């Protein structure tokens, strides 16, 4: 024995370079485990003393499990007395004279054996064909690549193993009753082992496959390296060969299998079969794919299912139902569900699930299986859940039976279901009989009769209505209306109409009456006549209904007819009718509606104005403009809105044409509407108005309208109006030119028309106007012109230019302004220039912040007045930097500047603090920044449940005054600190006593300090514990 192991070890060492396999020395503990796991009794009694040769030679890969399997086989033989064992790895053992002493040979993960010696090949073949046995464990198929006969004898050759030794794979037993499978108790199992794919050779024709992989298992079916052809992956098989027998099992890669009792027992049974002691059925069977769903198991799971438990099996049943395409497959599932219904131990949740599924796929055949549940008040509801939607007489029959047998609530449920199903047969009379009985039952019967409809149900209802009272009577009337609606829907308008008339009488409740009246109009042969009749009735209920039904009749005839009734109505009804006419929008009633503008009642007038939005046209324009001009408040608002929303190009044309012919406020309203309606064709008229408008209001409106509707091509015309002095208001025109110029996207093209016009301008005022416009547009192309104008001898021109430059939108004229501020003779000009300069120092530029501060420092030096010095101080925070801080601090001692300086210093400090904040944490330090990145969706977290001592630290960069800290965990709402303490420090090392402590209670934790704390470092320490919650900070904000 010891020798054998030494030999194996030597062989392995020689192969190690190729295979990197290492054999661990089998330990005494492992031997003990194997011994204990080995069966104590063999499945068969040996007919005689048996001898097993365990052969271990590897010419290819050497499995580390070889010594384990050898040891296990040896121990099993000894323990059960089934055989004695000889272990070898020498080819000589196959010499016939030596081999003959054995009853079976076990190829124990031998690899790449070639049996080059023909004598030995013959010997092995004679051995098995003559009546002996061959056993293969795991690698035993990895042999005989050059010896086809032996390869076929084994069943095939190794072809890879996508199911590696690290995985756990599902195994299915092909015949659970097969004696060699007894140890697995007939059930598929999962095993952690390496499973071979075998390139089989006539395996299914010559061998009985005992077990294989269950590829319907998700993990097994999706293993890495799997191919579409991997369908039939056999693991164990047996066959007769000549007079002898062969048993193979591919389990045995991992060591632990040798102390797995079921596997050892399987090996032993296979060995006894091979030796001839344990005859079993070896008839080959074709491969049969395992069905995707094990319906029997699913049904069992459903029987035991309860709410809150895993719904895996329920979902599998859903999927099975979805996959079942044929009626036969679906019937199979339907029948399987019946098993849940009839199982004594089925849970209510399980039964309910079965009923839900029968609702979806059940046929008439389910009626009887559901009947039992239906008749039991405890389960009646769930049975109805299934039955209600299943069509067929059989279901009706079961329900009628239940209707007769049941009482109380369960009976009400059955009545409801019968109603839903609309069974016009036998139940109708039964239900009719219930209408006079107990209240709840009667209610249900009424509703059901209404659903069922038809002459019998209806006459029962009509009969019942006279004697019924209160709620029940209402219910009956409502139900009759539903019947009438159904009739009308089906086109039986006459019948429906008769029914509606019956309920329209004044002694019925008002709601019923109203609904009936609506129905009457709807179902009438001449709905229009009914509507007009309603309008003429001396009854506001009828009038209102007639009005509300206006939009149910097509064609403008009805609108015209209704509009003609307007005058006879009361003011509130007029308002309603006008509003309904407006909603309909028939232009044909426009004139009648316009007449209503003159109504004595204000509310009617307003309603008419509103209605005109949809029914008015070009002829409405002037009346509306006049109305807008002469009214105020809501009325004016409504009139304007209508004028702005009137449809059609013709409306635009009337507005445009009427501008010239109207005066004063009406003209202004028309111009306003040009603006709102964006009538670009009106621009020429507007220009004319602009050139001679004397009225300020009109001038303002016309400029606003030009700004809206004129496009940049109109600029030369606008400029020439200005130059020709044909403007009522110079400043309005300047604004208009600026606004229209800005419609041009290209900034250079914005100023081009003005730059072109400027040289031709003589009038000083016009020149100033154009310079001011250039200033507003701020295009740098205009700067040379403006700079030149700075030298203009006219002081007004010069001042205008300085103002234009000071308002420049970028820093282009900054140095020009500096020179003006320094040298100009006018103090006013100096001030304007300096203010512009200060502003521009803060504009985005390529300068460093320090250089910008230097500019401001120069401004400070230049400023004579404290106003400008304060402006410098106010500008400093936008450059927040060390230099800005220093400059601001200089003014702290100047009394007149003190408060602004102080404010600036504080602001700068805060801003610097914000940009210099650094954070760190005891855990996940790399992610700490996510707590201050301004994004709520990112977070810092501990990555492990909260424990005391975890901390999050903030370094402000320099000491600053802090009032509070807010920790926001909204995205991970439960992850607020269980408890916390906050510490402050100026060096990040000496922390002292906590400055705040407490407990988190919700996603957002705001920690207010009792008094402001001036420090550079702040640390939040988590002090509580949680079993499952991390500490997360999505966003932290510091309250300065």
């Amino acid at each position: 024995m010891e020798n054998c192991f030494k030999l194996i070890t030597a062989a392995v060492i020689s192969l190690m370079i190729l295979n990197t396999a290492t054999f661990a020395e089998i330990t005494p503990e492992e031997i003990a485990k194997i011994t204990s796991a080995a069966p104590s009794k063999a499945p068969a009694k040996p007919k005689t003393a048996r001898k097993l040769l365990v052969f271990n030679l590897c010419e290819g890969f050497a499995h580390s499990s070889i010594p384990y399997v050898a040891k296990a086989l040896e121990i099993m033989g000894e323990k059960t007395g089934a055989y004695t064992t000889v272990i070898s790895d020498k080819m000589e053992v196959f010499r016939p004279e030596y081999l003959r002493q054995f009853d079976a040979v076990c190829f124990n993960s031998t690899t790449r054996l070639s049996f080059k010696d023909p004598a030995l090949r013959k010997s092995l073949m004679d051995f098995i064909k003559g009546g002996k046995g061959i056993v293969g464990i795991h690698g035993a198929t990895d042999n005989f690549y050059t010896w086809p006969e032996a390869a076929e004898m084994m069943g095939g050759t190794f072809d890879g193993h996508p199911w590696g030794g690290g995985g756990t794979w599902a195994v299915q037993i092909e015949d659970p009753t097969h004696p060699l499978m007894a140890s697995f108790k007939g059930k598929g199992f999962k095993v952690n082992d390496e499973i071979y794919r075998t390139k089989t050779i006539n395996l299914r024709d010559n061998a009985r496959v005992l077990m294989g992989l269950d590829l319907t298992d998700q993990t097994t079916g999706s293993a890495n390296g799997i191919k579409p052809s991997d369908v039939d992956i056999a693991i164990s098989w047996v066959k007769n060969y000549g007079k002898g027998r062969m048993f193979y099992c591919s389990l045995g890669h991992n060591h632990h299998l040798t102390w797995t009792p079921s596997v050892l027992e399987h090996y032993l049974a296979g060995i006894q079969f091979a030796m001839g002691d344990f005859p079993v059925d070896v008839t080959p069977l074709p491969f049969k794919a395992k069905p995707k769903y094990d319906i029997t198991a699913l049904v069992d799971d459903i029987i035991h299912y309860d709410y809150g438990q895993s719904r895996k099996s329920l979902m599998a049943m859903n999927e099975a139902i979805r996959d079942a395409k044929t009626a036969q497959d679906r019937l199979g599932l339907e029948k399987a569900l019946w098993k849940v219904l009839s199982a004594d131990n089925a849970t209510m949740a399980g039964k309910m699930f079965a009923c839900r599924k029968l609702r979806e796929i059940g046929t008439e055949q389910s009626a009887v299986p559901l009947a039992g549940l239906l008749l039991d008040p405890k389960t009646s509801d769930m049975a109805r859940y299934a039955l209600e939607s299943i069509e067929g007489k059989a279901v009706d029959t079961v329900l009628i039976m239940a209707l007769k047998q049941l009482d109380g609530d369960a009976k009400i449920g059955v009545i409801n279901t019968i109603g839903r199903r609309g069974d016009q047969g036998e139940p109708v009379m039964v239900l009719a009989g219930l209408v006079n009985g107990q209240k709840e039952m009667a209610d249900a019967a009424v509703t059901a009769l209404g659903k069922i409809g038809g002459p019998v149900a209806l006459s029962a209802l009509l009969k019942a209505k006279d004697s019924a009272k209160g709620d029940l009577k209402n219910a009956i009337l409502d139900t009759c209306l539903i019947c009438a609606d159904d009739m009308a829907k089906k086109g039986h308008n006459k019948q429906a109409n008769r029914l509606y008339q019956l309920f329209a009488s004044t002694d019925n409740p008002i709601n019923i009456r109203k609904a009936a009246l609506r129905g009457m109009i709807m179902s009438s042969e001449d709905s229009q006549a009914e509507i007009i009749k309603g309008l003429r009735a001396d009854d506001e209920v009828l009038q209102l209904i007639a009005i509300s039904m206006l939009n149910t009749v097509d064609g403008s005839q009805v609108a015209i007819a209704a509009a003609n009734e307007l005058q006879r109505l009361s003011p509130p009804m007029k308002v309603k009718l006008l509003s309904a006419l407006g909603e309909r929008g028939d232009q044909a009633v426009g004139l009648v509606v316009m007449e209503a503008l003159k109504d004595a009642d204000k509310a009617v007038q307003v309603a008419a104005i509103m209605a005109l939005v949809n029914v008015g046209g070009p002829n409405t324009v002037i009346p509306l403009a006049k109305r807008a001009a002469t009214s105020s408040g809501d009325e004016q608002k409504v009139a304007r809105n209508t004028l702005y929303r009137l449809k059609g190009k013709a409306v635009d044309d009337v507005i445009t044409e009427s501008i010239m012919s109207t005066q004063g406020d009406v003209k202004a309203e028309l111009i306003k509407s040009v603006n709102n309606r964006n009538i670009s064709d009106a621009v020429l008229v507007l220009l004319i108005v602009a050139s001679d408008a004397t009225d300020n209001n009109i001038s303002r409106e016309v400029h606003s309208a030009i700004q809206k509707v004129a496009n940049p091509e109109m600029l030369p015309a606008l400029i020439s109006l200005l130059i020709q002095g044909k403007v009522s208001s110079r400043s309005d025109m300047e604004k208009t030119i600026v606004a229209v110029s800005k419609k041009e996207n290209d900034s250079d093209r914005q100023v081009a028309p003005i730059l072109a016009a400027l040289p031709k301008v003589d009038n000083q005022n016009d020149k100033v106007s154009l310079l001011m416009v250039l200033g507003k547009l701020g295009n740098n192309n205009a700067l040379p012109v403006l700079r030149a104008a700075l030298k203009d001898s006219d002081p007004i021109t010069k001042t205008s230019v300085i103002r234009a430059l000071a308002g420049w939108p970028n820093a282009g004229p900054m140095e020009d302004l500096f020179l003006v501020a320094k040298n100009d003779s006018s103090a006013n000009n100096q001030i304007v220039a300096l203010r512009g300069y200060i502003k521009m120092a803060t504009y985005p530029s390529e300068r460093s912040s320090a250089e910008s501060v230097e500019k401001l420092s120069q401004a400070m030096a230049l400023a004579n007045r404290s106003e400008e010095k304060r402006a410098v101080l106010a500008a400093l925070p936008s450059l927040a930097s060390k230099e800005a801080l220093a400059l601001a601090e200089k003014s702290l001692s100047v009394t007149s500047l003190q408060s602004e300086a102080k404010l600036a210093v504080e602001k700068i400090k805060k801003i610097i603090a914000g940009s210099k904040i650094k954070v760190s944490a005891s855990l996940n330090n790399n992610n700490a920044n996510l707590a201050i990145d301004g994004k709520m969706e990112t977070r810092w977290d501990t990555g492990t449940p909260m424990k005391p001592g975890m901390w999050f630290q903030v370094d402000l960069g320099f000491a600053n005054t802090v009032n509070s800290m807010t920790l926001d965990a909204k995205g991970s709402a439960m992850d607020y600190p269980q408890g916390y303490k906050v510490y402050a420090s100026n060096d990040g090392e000496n922390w002292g006593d906590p400055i705040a402590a407490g407990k988190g209670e919700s996603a957002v934790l705001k920690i207010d300090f009792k008094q402001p704390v001036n420090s550079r470092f702040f640390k939040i320490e988590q002090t509580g514990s949680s079993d499952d919650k991390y500490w997360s900070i999505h966003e932290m904000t510091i309250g300065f």
Partner: protein
Amino acid sequence: MDYRDLIARGDMDAVMHALPDHWHGIVSVACARAGLDIHGQKPLARTIKGGRAICDAVKRYGRIWQTGSWQRSVGHFHYAAELVHAGVIGKIKYVEVGLPDGGGSGVLPVTPVPERLNYNMWLGPAPWRDHVALNGDTVHWNWRWVMDYSGGQLTDWAGHHIDIAHWGLGFDKTGPVAVTEAKGVYPTEGTYDVPTAYRFKNTYANGVEMVVANASQQPHGMGACWYGENGQWIHVNRGGHSASSPDILKTRLGPNDKRLYKSTDHHQNFLDCVKTRKETITPVETAHRSISAGLLGEIAMQTGRDLKWDPVNETFIGDPEANRYLSRPMRTPWAL
């Protein structure tokens, strides 16, 4: 308080309900029958037939109805839908609707019914199951993660973004003709059973395709995004709106463009209409069509097949089994 007692008072003109979805049908119909105007919540109802019953009752009794699809009364939603409706990006070919991901999770143990809760009444028409504390000691909010009461994020939000998508398309009174490629991910564990991920495609009679999915499966995430025939698009969501080019959003529609109903205050719009008897911005038929477009997807996910839909008669064509999903049997004694 029992809603029936409230209705019986007889001194109310209008009602605003805030109920779990499975109660919408019964209460709304009862209110309409009692002559009340109704501000109902979206989704209109838990089933398509339930929604149709509400529409019929509202029409029968001539009631004013407003739905809680308040996005219609918010400026930028109105603007985006109006641009689409007016044809600013041409004929619409494709619409993307993104609704929230996920749902509730965890196993809720069966607990005694709190004293102040009439659990049997709360459950109402839904199938019986023992009481679990859905939300601390109340039943609020989390009912939406149980299929018997709601349909999860999909049905919760269909009345928002599908509603807006329909608005822009002019589909307020119609529905798709087919729902295909439906796929839902239903959790196998925990109390909650609504789909946490979902995706399906509605096709309308004029060829417009609308893909509804949870936001992480949509290029624009949450909201509605319409794509025009030239590849231009407009997207709108709670945060704002955007378009394939900024010029689209500079459009100012004029009097001659097709315009949409305008409201700037959803509740006020309801109150105004109660007085004027005009139609609200989200009338009942509109709400019904908005949720139907979501419920059709739910049914396609449940049946696992492509479905053809007749939006006029509101039945599936050639699939009687799918038609079974259009209503749900109710627990005793409830009926609709």
